[in-house]
């Protein structure tokens, strides 16, 4: 299932037709748009593969580039600029494109009127399991474990919440780190394009030697844990509060460190079989 997206060579699409040297592309998702400039326009095909499903590419009608990918003309080296600032360079095109896609996702999250939460998301039986957390907490490996067990893939980066707490996908390739580097993988089982209700919020991070033995969270604590990772919490607190509390009222909440991703996914799915959505664990205190 793993593949190097940039080298897979079959990402032919209409995208290439809208890119020309020096042109600025507009990428639109959830009502927000981001301008991206590629010094090598042929890379638009593979960039598209790194963007969330449903994102629309077009030639930008106005505005300067928010994100720029500069390719060396002499060596396989790529620089990524965010506005006027160079955020990194790499000899690996996959790495550079992932940075571009990450920057695009960040700007969409900041510009949309929906509430983006930094979280992994999977769909099970028509409802969402949300895994809020920091980078390097192991969200991606846990999302991959859920997908391996038949769950629909929604995102390994953002949960998108509507004001009534419904959860929408932001499905870009999962970045899986290992000792030999990182791989990008877009699961075939991308979840429903429409919104689904929340089922559970799982706050966890990988800890060597730990096993999944979570504490239940009350609805209020679920909301606080999700607000901590909400992109709109500071700039649009009323919007974030409304969406997050709606999600928390509909979702079970659990918190605690975890061990191996597969065992944790099995335990969470088993836990949900025995608890109905909205059946909050009264008095759950959390850590």
């Amino acid at each position, binding site marked *: 299932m793993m593949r190097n997206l940039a080298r897979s060579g079959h990402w032919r699409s209409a995208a290439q037709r809208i890119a020309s040297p020096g042109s600025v592309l507009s990428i639109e998702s959830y009502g927000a748009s981001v301008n991206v400039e590629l010094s090598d326009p042929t890379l638009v095909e593979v960039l598209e593969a790194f963007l969330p499903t449903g994102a629309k590419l077009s030639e930008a009608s106005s505005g300067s580039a928010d994100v720029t990918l500069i390719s060396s003309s002499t060596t396989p080296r790529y620089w990524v600029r965010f506005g006027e600032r160079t955020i990194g360079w790499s000899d690996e095109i996959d790495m550079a494109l992932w940075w571009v896609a990450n920057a695009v996702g960040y700007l969409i*999250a900041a510009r949309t009127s929906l509430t983006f939460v930094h979280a992994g998301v999977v769909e099970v039986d028509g409802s969402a399991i949300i895994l809020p*957390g920091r980078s390097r907490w192991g969200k991606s490996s846990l999302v991959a474990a859920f997908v391996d067990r038949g769950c629909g893939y929604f995102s390994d980066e953002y949960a998108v919440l509507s004001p009534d707490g419904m959860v929408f996908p932001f499905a870009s390739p999962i970045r899986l780190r290992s000792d030999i580097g990182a791989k990008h993988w877009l699961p075939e089982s991308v979840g429903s394009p429409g919104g689904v209700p929340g089922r559970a919020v799982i706050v966890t991070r990988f800890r060597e030697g730990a096993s999944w033995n979570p504490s239940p969270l009350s*609805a209020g604590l679920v909301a606080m844990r999700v*607000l901590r990772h909400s992109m709109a*919490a500071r700039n649009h607190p009323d919007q974030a*509060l409304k969406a997050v*509390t709606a999600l*928390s009222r509909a979702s079970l909440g659990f918190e605690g460190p975890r061990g191996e991703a597969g065992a944790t996914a099995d335990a969470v799915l088993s836990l949900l079989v025995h608890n109905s959505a909205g059946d909050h664990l009264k008095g759950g*205190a959390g850590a």
Partner: protein
Amino acid sequence: VTVSVEKERFLRVACGNGEQIVFDRNRDEFHLLRGVAAEIWERVAGGGTFHISDIGAPEIVGTEDFGAALREMEKAQLVHVEEDADGSPDAKINRRAWIGITGKAAAAATVLPFVMTLVAPRPRLAMAHGGGGDSNGGDSNGQQR
């Protein structure tokens, strides 16, 4: 003892299970209010100045939980508590009683706080570093305001 709450400063949403989340527009902070603190807020959320005996059900005013909740709310700057001069004849709770209540409550050091505070994270912190820490419990990590 009187308790004052500023009008227009706070945004409030009920979570169910008797919990409320209050956003402080002046300080960019979310507060989770539980138990007695949520009950107190229910009475004062409209803003104004209240006598302490009017902000809780008669059976809880004067209890250690009441004192602890009010002290945590004051510390979080949700309310401003002003102590009357000693001997106010019509006060159900005077300064001496207030000090006694809150002193016992502080000594009890509640395991589960009535008020939990989260500094609203800026977008980059929400994504990369997980945002502000809780003032009670959780992995407090602070952040630039």
